[in-house]
């Protein structure tokens, strides 16, 4: 056995998170970085997201996905950061040995000082939501259809129903329409959309595509190929209401029913996952419960905007670089407690010694709320109250917690973030 290769920072995944993490690590002074990417190119999901709207925060201009990815690929090249494509990571051990395989190197093992998890997420498939009906062709996740249309040049169907109003579903409703398909309906189980409002306006309203809230698909018919789907209204407990069924003839059903962080590798390393986000539990430095293993981007929690992925991942890269030169992020942490409408926070705990000017806390709410106060408590002491006109599950919120609040509230045992009437 050859002696194991030693790398300071191994980054798992070369999408937007992995590339920004690499840039962050390199700019923080780390010269021994390796990105491992399983696809044939860097860029991840951005390669198939040919629509515009990326980069408004990061570059102050509206870019398409491939253009946004290219900005980071250019940085990776300019900084001469090494990467391996076609490389599948098979295992990460708790002591940070990364096992991977590709056609050039065969099986390889790398001893990393720090590991950055940047594997992204994947779509919930039909099996995850148990739709009744036959097992015919013509049922795709929205992202699969997106890859077929935008990268392979295949149209998956002509008459389409979309289940779920996640952003990819909305964008694919528009994309299929522009390519000549008839999108007959978008069906959303909840009384609100999981996607961004601007996507409902630009992708559905612009093309007169109907969106049925509080509806679901109750049956799929078809022998070889989808012939129709049956939709029905649901009651307050999300159960279909008998008698409200309508059958829609179509040849294609697209599923846009949620994204799941892809954490099989994290689990094999022994990283603790949050049952709510499906991503690793991290501290203020984006370090998991395993020393020297960091996480960022959609593998940590599903984001709406790539700009925030890049920002978060750059920070993870910088922290990993510090760790690789001996800095520890251990010490006493104050737990964050999401309450009363706040579903989760990332990070889940903060050690004030490790923050510079402020800590960034990202969270989502569990329902649509209008005219609520967003309140932050250090122990019993309310340090912030901010009126929000609207809060929606589909829009991630960001909170900056200044270091001064920690200094003014020493000895506090928990930080509570909640909505108040």
């Amino acid at each position, binding site marked *: 056995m050859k002696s194991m290769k030693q790398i300071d920072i191994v980054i798992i995944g070369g999408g937007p998170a992995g590339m920004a993490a690499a840039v962050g690590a390199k700019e923080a002074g780390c010269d021994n970085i390796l990105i491992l990417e399983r696809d044939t190119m860097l860029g991840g999901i951005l*390669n198939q997201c*040919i*629509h*515009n709207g990326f980069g408004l925060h990061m570059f102050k201009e*509206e*870019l*398409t*996905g*491939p*253009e946004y990815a*290219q900005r980071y690929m250019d940085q990776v090249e300019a900084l001469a950061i090494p990467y391996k494509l076609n490389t599948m990571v098979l295992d990460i051990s708790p002591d940070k040995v990364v096992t991977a395989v590709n056609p050039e190197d065969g099986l390889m093992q790398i001893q990393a000082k720090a590991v950055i998890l940047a594997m992204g997420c994947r779509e919930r498939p039909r099996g995850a939501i148990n739709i009744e009906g036959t097992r015919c062709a013509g049922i795709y996740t929205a992202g699969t259809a997106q890859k077929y*249309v*935008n*990268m*392979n*040049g295949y149209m998956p169907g002509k008459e389409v129903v979309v289940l779920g109003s996640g952003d990819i579903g909305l964008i694919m409703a528009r994309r299929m329409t*522009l*390519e*000549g398909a008839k999108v007959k309906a978008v069906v959303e189980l909840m009384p609100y959309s999981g996607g*961004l*409002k*601007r996507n*409902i*306006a*630009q992708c559905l*309203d*612009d093309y007169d595509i109907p969106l049925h809230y509080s509806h679901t698909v109750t049956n799929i018919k078809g022998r070889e190929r989808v012939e129709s789907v049956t939709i029905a209204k649901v009651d307050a407990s999300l159960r279909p209401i008998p008698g409200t069924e309508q059958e829609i003839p179509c040849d294609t059903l697209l599923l846009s029913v949620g994204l799941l962080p892809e954490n099989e590798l994290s689990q094999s390393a022994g990283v603790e996952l949050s049952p709510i986000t499906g991503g690793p539990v991290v501290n203020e430095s984006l370090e998991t419960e395993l020393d020297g293993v960091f996480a960022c981007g959609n593998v940590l929690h599903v984001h709406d905007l790539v700009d925030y992925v890049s920002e978060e991942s750059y920070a993870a890269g910088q922290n990993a670089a510090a760790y690789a030169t001996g800095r520890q992020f251990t010490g006493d942490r104050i737990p964050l407690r999401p309450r009363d409408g706040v579903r989760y926070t990332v990070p889940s705990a903060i050690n004030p010694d490790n923050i510079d000017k402020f800590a960034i806390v990202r969270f989502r709410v569990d329902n649509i709320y209008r005219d609520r106060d967003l309140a932050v408590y250090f122990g019993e002491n309310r340090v912030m109250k901010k009126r929000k*006109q*609207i809060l*929606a599950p589909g*829009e991630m919120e960001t909170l900056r917690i200044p270091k001064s609040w920690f200094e003014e509230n020493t000895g506090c045992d928990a930080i509570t973030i909640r909505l108040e009437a």
Partner: protein
Amino acid sequence: MPMETRSIICISCPVGCPMTVTLEGGEVTKVEGNTCPRGESYAKKECVNPTRIVTSSVPVEGGEFAMVSVKTASDIPKSAIPDCARALRGVVAKAPVAIGDVIVPNVAGTGINIIATRHVKTLLSF
């Protein structure tokens, strides 16, 4: 001139204000429901001259990828979107392509070019 009201959702930011716009003779005379000035300017543009960036992808010959993603170099009138989509059918680009290369000049008579949004290198054949 006839008076008309329209309900639109502001897409300038995540708040998504529901706005009621009053038009007289094709001119916006009143915007209600917006909570900031951006709503008003969006409403005026959206009701008088709505525009969009259109994105698509077209096949590329001799390239490392099968398709090259493209967009309108700037926004085009919303009413021109169907013609723009039709004009892109049958278009085939030739590798190599660089971001910004013109793929279709003056698409559907809008005066706006369709440009590439991805680099596509030539596929080396042996």
